[in-house]
């Protein structure tokens, strides 16, 4: 990054902070524009109840997006998060039916998340398997175990104060109470990813694993801890999901993994690793959340919303690359006069 003429670096592979910043900012601006327009033109958008619905429904995705961002930055992915949410909820429901107290159940569910993450992480780091394949396997396995645990029952009679906590707002504002723990996690995640050696190491591993290893990063341990973090947060989300919707079923949060990944990628986190910011990811999450909310308000059917999500996702990966390619093409055309200004390496 010490290259004094950044335009020349545009065609090369590697880390381009400018690109990442531009994309994050674009998504952030888009979110702000959407919110402003909705406040101005969409009836019933601005009232506290709707805003709290918006945030409450987006929270599960927002929670999991935090560790998922770090995982994708380090070049891995976890598709089993939705199933971990379901499994954690199913175990919670089962234990509650057995008469255990909720104060014991929640730590147990978190522990379960740690185990789920460990299984993913150990298979990826110790056996050297691709995380995509492993987590498709555990996606089916965890969901299957959830089904074995709870069958087709649903558990709804959780203690009232917990149900209230997960659906109530703070005082007279529109912020759900459950957003507070999320905000704490967000601060922790931002600090870890953007202000600590661990975060730098994650970017290094994502950009070039080999180089990071030679630079002294303990790649396997780092990745393992990220999988564990993802599993843990997913299990917590499972508890929140069961309480928020007052229903623990084995098929809770089916397909949530795709929403999380769509939001994270929309936020400018490069699927190849080594690029992205948590700000972008959070903007992506809430952009999708707000868009869905607005479309429901203006009576766009849920099906058409799916189309919009898909189009946004495709654009989000296509646009930066097209921009980069055209920038590279322009740079090539610009440097045609003095041939080969870059030192020939081949």
């Amino acid at each position, binding site marked *: 990054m010490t290259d004094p003429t950044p335009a020349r670096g545009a065609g090369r592979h590697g880390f381009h902070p400018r690109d990442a910043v531009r994309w994050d900012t674009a998504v952030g601006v888009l979110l702000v524009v959407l919110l402003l327009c909705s406040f101005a033109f969409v009836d019933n958008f601005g009232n506290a109840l709707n805003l709290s619905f918006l945030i409450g429904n987006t929270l599960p995705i927002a929670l999991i997006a935090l560790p998922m961002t770090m995982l994708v930055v380090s070049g891995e992915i976890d598709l089993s998060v939705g199933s971990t949410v379901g499994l954690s909820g199913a175990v919670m429901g089962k234990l509650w039916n057995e008469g255990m107290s909720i104060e014991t159940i929640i730590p147990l569910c978190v522990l379960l998340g740690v185990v789920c993450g460990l299984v993913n992480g150990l298979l990826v780091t110790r*056996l050297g398997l691709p995380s995509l*394949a492993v987590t*498709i396997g555990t996606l*089916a*396995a965890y969901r299957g175990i959830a089904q074995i645990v709870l069958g087709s029952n649903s558990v709804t009679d959780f203690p009232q104060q917990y149900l209230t906590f997960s659906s109530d707002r703070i005082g007279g504002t529109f912020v759900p109470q459950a957003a507070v723990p999320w905000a704490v996690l967000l601060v922790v995640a931002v600090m870890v990813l953007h202000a600590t050696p661990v975060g730098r190491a994650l970017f290094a591993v994502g950009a070039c694993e080999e180089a990071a290893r030679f630079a002294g990063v303990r790649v396997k341990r780092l990745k393992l801890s990220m999988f564990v973090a993802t599993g843990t947060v997913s299990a917590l989300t499972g508890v929140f999901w069961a309480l928020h919707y007052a229903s623990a079923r084995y098929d809770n949060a089916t397909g949530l993994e795709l929403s999380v990944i*769509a939001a994270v990628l929309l936020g400018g986190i490069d699927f190849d690793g080594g690029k992205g910011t948590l700000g972008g990811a959070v903007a992506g999450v809430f952009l999708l959340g707000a868009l869905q909310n607005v479309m429901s308000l203006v009576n766009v059917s849920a*099906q058409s919303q*799916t189309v919009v999500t898909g189009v946004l996702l495709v654009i989000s*990966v296509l646009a930066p690359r097209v921009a980069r390619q055209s920038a590279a093409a322009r740079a090539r055309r610009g440097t045609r006069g003095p041939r080969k200004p870059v030192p020939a390496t081949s």
Partner: protein
Amino acid sequence: MTMTAKPAAAPAGSATGSGGFLDRVLKVRELAILVVLVLMLVATQLDNSAFLSEQGVKDLLLNATILVLVGVGEAMVVITRNVDLSVGSVLGVSAFAAGEFLRGGGNPVLGIVIAVAIGAGFGVVNGLLVSLGQVPALVVTLGTLYIIRGLDSVWFGSRQITAADLPSGFVGFGHDGLGAVPWLAVLTVAVLVVAAYYLRGYRGGRDLYALGSSPEAARLAGVAVRKRLLTAYIACGALAGLAGALYLARFGNVDSGTGNGYELTVVSAVVVGGVAFTGGSGSVYGAALGALLLTSINSVLPAIGVSSVWVQAIDGVLLLLAIAVDRVVALRVAALLRERAAQTRSAHHD
């Protein structure tokens, strides 16, 4: 670029040379699935003698055909180190399109052609996005999964197609057959053999493996990367479309949820069948066996009295086992090859 022809021949030659041993291991890999499958079926038969009756065999084959078809297409894409997650959505939309056409009194053969054409059309879209945009296939096809599913539901609404709407010949085609072998299975085997022959014997097929083994090397060797990727995606889409038509014939019942979540089953079947995510290895026969294994488990469990809630967990564990075993075998083979290389080197020294 004038030397494309010559270097293209070289990697093909070296692949067969050093890959002889690897080839054998991969064949053993397919044999292993076959053994597991046969053991499972025999054990079930011993436990429940009604299992492998004529109708039982027919059901096993019928259940497998649709997954096998989509799996063959998916395998062609995965071999190039890409993936197509939109197959479930494509299956759903082409099944519905064929159903609408037949309900209006259309010719069944034309209905199947329409389904295949729709699938191929979506294959073109996926293939162009992946090959021209050079964006990760996982992300693009995740996007098209959403888009196609959405279009699908907008078009369907809450409508449904039932067997009563379809010509009886078409529904009969979905159920009847030569004794225990249903027509659908005959068609599927034909597709399977053609795909396998193309991948083994034609330059286009070999190029798919070359692309998956090393995209960069394949490009330098003059493989027409975009064209081959496009071919793979079109084949995958067309087969998903065909599977949609057969789904309609088999079940006679299609709504907007048809094919929902099917992509993960397909990917599981392909990977269990030994087509590695890292590209360049595996065969469509393996993928077909993987699909047959997964669908057979679904029939075996109820037959031996295990509740069907176990099916999904077992599928997942099986997938994990398959990739773990593959990895261990690959490491062994690599160590063996290194050892052999070291031996030849020391022999040269003497």
